[in-house]
């Protein structure tokens, strides 16, 4: 594969907090147009890796390329084609959904912002929520509003942290379908951290498992099932976590 075929490439990425190693020597490549899951138990280094890929955390050493661009050198340029959603990073609660989308639309330089908000409102079924304050929404509604924000700029790389956390099975299924449709339409790459193994099996082409800051397994879901001789990813995850 040529350099243009990768959405994300990290080389020997390390992150130290004081004397604690959060990520050690992470080298990974995520193919363009793929859906890749980053798995790992608590403290495995997933959030730190996500933070570094978003440019919110500075690596202690190593290199990150997004679509062939050095993230540290051109963070703002890179950020225009990337977006993210996380239940752990809020949108301002006192602003309405529409106001939040308008603000972030301007920050991302979205053309025809009014039209784009209307389009996303229809697609994410949040038309009736647009003029409600973000703080008054239920968990499921917040997730949809946050997804709308993350799709505003039609990102080529979508970073998702637990995209269906706290959603009921029906809504979670609806969100997964929406994400897969978006990925196909825009030829986007999705990189997501998840603890939902069913979701990973259903959506992902590639799975990266981290433990104590390092990648301990990497392959397609089927590769991992074969390698660990298990029936599902949940068992693979438990094998890795407990050994």
């Amino acid at each position, binding site marked *: 594969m040529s350099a*243009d075929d990768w959405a994300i490439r990290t080389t020997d990425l390390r992150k130290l*907090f004081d004397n604690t190693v959060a990520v050690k020597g992470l080298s990974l490549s995520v193919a363009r147009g793929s859906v890749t899951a980053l798995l790992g138990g608590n403290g495995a280094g997933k959030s*730190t890796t996500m*933070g570094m890929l*978003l*440019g*919110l*955390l*500075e690596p*202690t050493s190593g290199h990150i*390329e*997004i*679509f*062939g*661009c*050095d993230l540290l*050198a*051109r*963070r*703002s*340029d*890179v*950020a*225009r*084609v*990337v*977006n*993210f959603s*996380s239940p752990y*990073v*809020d*949108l*301002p*609660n*006192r*602003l*309405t959904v529409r*106001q939040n989308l*308008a*603000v*972030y*639309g*301007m*920050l*991302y*330089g979205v053309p025809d912002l009014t039209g784009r908000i209307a389009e996303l409102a229809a697609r994410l079924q949040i038309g009736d929520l647009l003029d409600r*304050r973000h703080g008054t929404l239920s968990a499921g509604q917040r997730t949809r509003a946050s997804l709308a*924000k993350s799709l505003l700029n039609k990102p*080529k790389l979508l970073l998702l942290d637990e995209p269906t956390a706290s959603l009921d099975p029906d809504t979670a299924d609806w969100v997964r379908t929406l994400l897969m449709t978006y990925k196909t339409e825009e030829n986007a790459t999705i990189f997501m951290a998840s603890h939902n193994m069913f979701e990973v099996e259903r959506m992902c082409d590639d799975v990266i498992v981290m433990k104590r800051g390092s990648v301990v397994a990497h392959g397609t879901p089927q590769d991992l099932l074969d390698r660990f001789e298990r029936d599902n990813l949940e068992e693979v995850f438990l094998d890795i976590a407990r050994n």
Partner: protein
Amino acid sequence: MTSPVIESEAGSFFPSWNRVCGLALRHVYLYMGSWPRLVEMMYWPILNIAMFGFISLAIVKRFGQVDVVTDTYLGGLLLGEILTRVQIAMLIFFMEEIWSRNLGHLFASPLRLRDYIGGVFAFSAFRCFISVAPAFAVAYFLFDFSILKFGWILPVYLALLCFNGWCFGTFIVSLLLRFGLAAEWLGWMCSWLLMPFMAPYYPVSILPQSFQYVSWALPGTYVFESMKSQVETGRFRADYLGLALVLNLAYFVVAMVVFKRSFNSAKRTGRLLQMGE
């Protein structure tokens, strides 16, 4: 390094107008939807002008001193409000993002530091104007004191004090970036810390000698001295205003360096993601 997906931003030296407006709009929306915030914004300047106005009237009545007392007090107070309100606006601008745990979304967007600074400067000047405009009106209607009596030099006073407020406000935000929410109380304190040294109501010469060294290192001091000179003699001090500008420029350069370093430190330690939790 070139990429078929990512384009370089043209004219990237200057803040992006879209992002500056987006950032300011976020706070305009916040204030539009929160009347307690609007009231608080105007409350303190009005309260201060009422207190000082009546104190100066009492002094005039007691000692028979002339308009100089009222004009110096009220002029110093109103101009001083510009300086403190700009700093407070910058502090609140940043704190609102921490309170709403929004820093992650904000700094994962294409927002650059210069855009952030542009947005915070624009909003703080706007918020300051909304804060002190009613106090200007109160001074006029209650105490017959018009800020416009300083004439055409008034915009220069306002601009220099606003500039000074931006520089000090940037230091305060840097403090929060470096030390996190633990430094919040320090941020509030710093907004008033240097005011006594700037001598808005009294001549610098009455301060102890050691304090005067600090005073003359602060841009605001020169503006207040010029204002007092204008009240007493009818003439402003162009030399002082020039010095205020030079000092402001020096502080601005240092403030930008400190802010950039503090921001990088927050990215190293992970504080950018953790603040507010």
